[in-house]
């Protein structure tokens, strides 16, 4: 074995500083991109009713990137992850790791690491034994000392090096999460998959752990796909996010772009907290009108009924003061002020976030403007502007 290794090293002609057996390299073998082509999963229930969990999913996840699969519960994101892992068989479509098709490769041959939502740490084994578990299955057999060293190295990477002799039950949620990541990474997988990695953690730990995941991913450079329903989580650490709904990909882009330029009404509604304000409108002869008849802009869109989306922070008191609103309520939330405003002719109020230095008071009529707005087809939800 060692002779072979040396040969290879000679071939690539790279000077290697030290090569003792306990020197462990934490970087992955090679990171690959993950390509899904028309991936489809249809579940049949006992009454032969079809449920399209994932439908014609096409996506290329670039090598070495951290990608968040984002969507509401039941949108097929976990199913997609499990298909990439090989635990679910796709009904149609193909999965590629790099150039290699793995659609029908059993999970154990795919070279993936999977962190389960509830971590699935073996409760009867210590942290060290848990992390060593994948190594012990490797053939040819690895030396015990080397396994221990690798496990320790991985544990150091996720900052749990001093907890090696504990049982999972004696660890906090965040620590268990790290053990699970270490166990997934120790065998140097090509792809790391995380299923709702932060959902079992409390708010503070969540913030910390997501940065930790980002750091680990950066340090190892492994292609990482994680599934979440929490937009903040996905947006904060992902290189790109894929928004899914009803098994169909809605949009894939960098997080900020998805937020700034949503592809459709679903994405616009799904991202953003407080949520985007959606009001009905209509386009007539190149004019965008509210349902009270007020023209708010000229628009190069065929006549149709539309939904107008305005994010709370798009409202302004400085320019373009077009909307007559009645302020129902004002909430001061530190830096900003949130105002609940009623537009004439609409039943639901809209939320506006205004910097706090603009003194607003409730129960008065004012004029308000907006910097931007989105226009969607009211039926299809397709973005028009």
């Amino acid at each position, binding site marked *: 074995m060692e002779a072979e290794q040396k040969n290879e090293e000679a071939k690539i002609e790279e000077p290697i500083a030290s090569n003792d057996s306990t020197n462990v390299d934490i970087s992955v073998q090679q990171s690959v991109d993950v390509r899904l082509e028309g991936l489809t999963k249809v579940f049949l229930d006992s009454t032969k009713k079809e449920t399209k969990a994932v439908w014609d999913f096409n996506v290329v996840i670039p090598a070495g990137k951290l990608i968040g699969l984002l969507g509401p519960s039941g949108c097929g994101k976990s199913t997609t992850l499990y298909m990439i892992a090989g635990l679910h068989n796709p009904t149609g479509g193909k999965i590629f790791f790099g150039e290699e098709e793995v659609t029908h490769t059993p999970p154990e041959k795919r070279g993936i690491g999977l962190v389960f939502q509830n971590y*699935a740490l*073996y409760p*009867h084994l210590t942290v060290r034994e848990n992390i060593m578990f994948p190594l012990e*299955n490797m053939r040819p057999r690895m030396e015990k000392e080397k396994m221990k060293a690798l496990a320790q190295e991985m544990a150091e990477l996720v900052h749990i090096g001093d907890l090696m002799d504990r049982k999972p039950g004696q660890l906090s949620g965040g620590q268990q999460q790290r053990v699970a990541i270490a166990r997934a990474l120790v*065998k140097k997988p090509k792809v790391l998959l995380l299923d709702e990695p932060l959902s079992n953690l409390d708010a503070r730990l969540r913030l910390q752990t997501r940065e930790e995941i980002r750091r680990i991913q950066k340090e190892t450079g492994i292609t990482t796909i994680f599934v979440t329903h929490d937009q903040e989580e996905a947006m904060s650490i992902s290189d790109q996010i894929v928004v899914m709904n009803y098994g169909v990909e809605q949009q894939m882009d960098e997080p900020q772009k998805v937020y700034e330029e949503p592809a459709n009404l679903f994405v616009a509604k799904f991202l953003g907290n407080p949520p985007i304000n959606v009001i009905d409108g209509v386009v007539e002869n190149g004019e965008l009108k509210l349902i009270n008849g007020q023209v708010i802009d000229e628009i190069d869109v065929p006549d149709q009924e539309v939904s107008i989306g305005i994010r709370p922070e798009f409202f302004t008191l400085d320019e373009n003061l077009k909307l007559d609103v009645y302020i129902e309520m004002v909430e001061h939330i530190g830096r900003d002020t949130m105002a609940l405003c009623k537009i004439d002719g609409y039943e639901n109020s809209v939320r506006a976030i205004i910097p706090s230095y603009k003194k607003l008071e409730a129960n008065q009529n004012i004029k308000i403007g907006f910097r931007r707005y989105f226009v969607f087809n009211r039926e299809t939800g397709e973005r028009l502007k």
Partner: protein
Amino acid sequence: MLEYKNDIWKALLALAPTLLLMAVFTFYPMINTVFSAFMEGYCYGVWRDNGNTIGWLSHYGETIMQSSYDAEGNLIGFTETYVGIGFGNFVTIFKDPTFIDALKNTAIMVIVSVPVTVIIGLLISVALNGIKKLQSVFQTIYFLPYVTNTIALGLVFAVLFSSRNGLINSFIESLGGNRVAWITPFAGKNPSYFTCLFVLMVYTVWNGLAFKILVFLSGMQSIDKQYYQAAQIDSTPRWRVFTKITVPLLSPMIAYITITSFIGAFKAYSSVIAIFNGNYGPRSNPNMLITVVGYTYDKLGKMSNVNELGRACASALVLFAIIMAITVVELWVSKKKVHY
């Protein structure tokens, strides 16, 4: 949880019928057993005729000893229901070769049947857990012995292993072998200790599987599937999945089953009776596979003199002590090995 102090009376009231029955039929006999074991010549009652005691009664009402009188008509011999306290009954039974045989037989049955049933039960459960189709059918098949009468099953086994026309012998013959004198004599050969024990063990193991499979299977089904998925992703070989994941996660069930199996096996009696048609062995040696419980019953039923009841109690106490000791050891071991 009791919410108010007053509830204790309600609770007691609810428990009273059970407690009363248990007091009469369980606690009192248990305590009395301990006393009786240490009494020499324990006697249940006195049979009087015209004011004169003429004999003592056994538990079953038969006269077990005629009294004798001295010249003045006073009773000689036992004047009380027992004559002394001591370890006499224990000394006697340990000197009784039948009791030693019973101990030996019981020990062999325990040592053979417990590990075999637990291991086979575990393997069958794993196999059952692995199949999706017909699982409930197989589950029912394996559970049938549990709901069937022991004696009836014993008769079936006696027929199966019958030397002359039993299914097993016919099968052996069809394979070109010779008929075996399993539990009945054949061709002038009496059944050996080994063949009798073999039949008994096959019966005991098969009969005991049902409950074990039930417990193991429900235990396995409560193990989180994700452990297995995690193991699969780490390309864990099947055998390792079994030894490193299933068995440890099932260890509370395994411990429970092992302890109850030990207790059950030590109490072996009806299985022997069922196979040998009311005896403890083949006709050539009716006490061949006598067990401790069998010995105890014999002493109770075939009382021929005053001391037999005490000896039955002593042998019951010996069995109790053995079971107790083994259970304590098992609990102690399971504390170290079981992952709750």
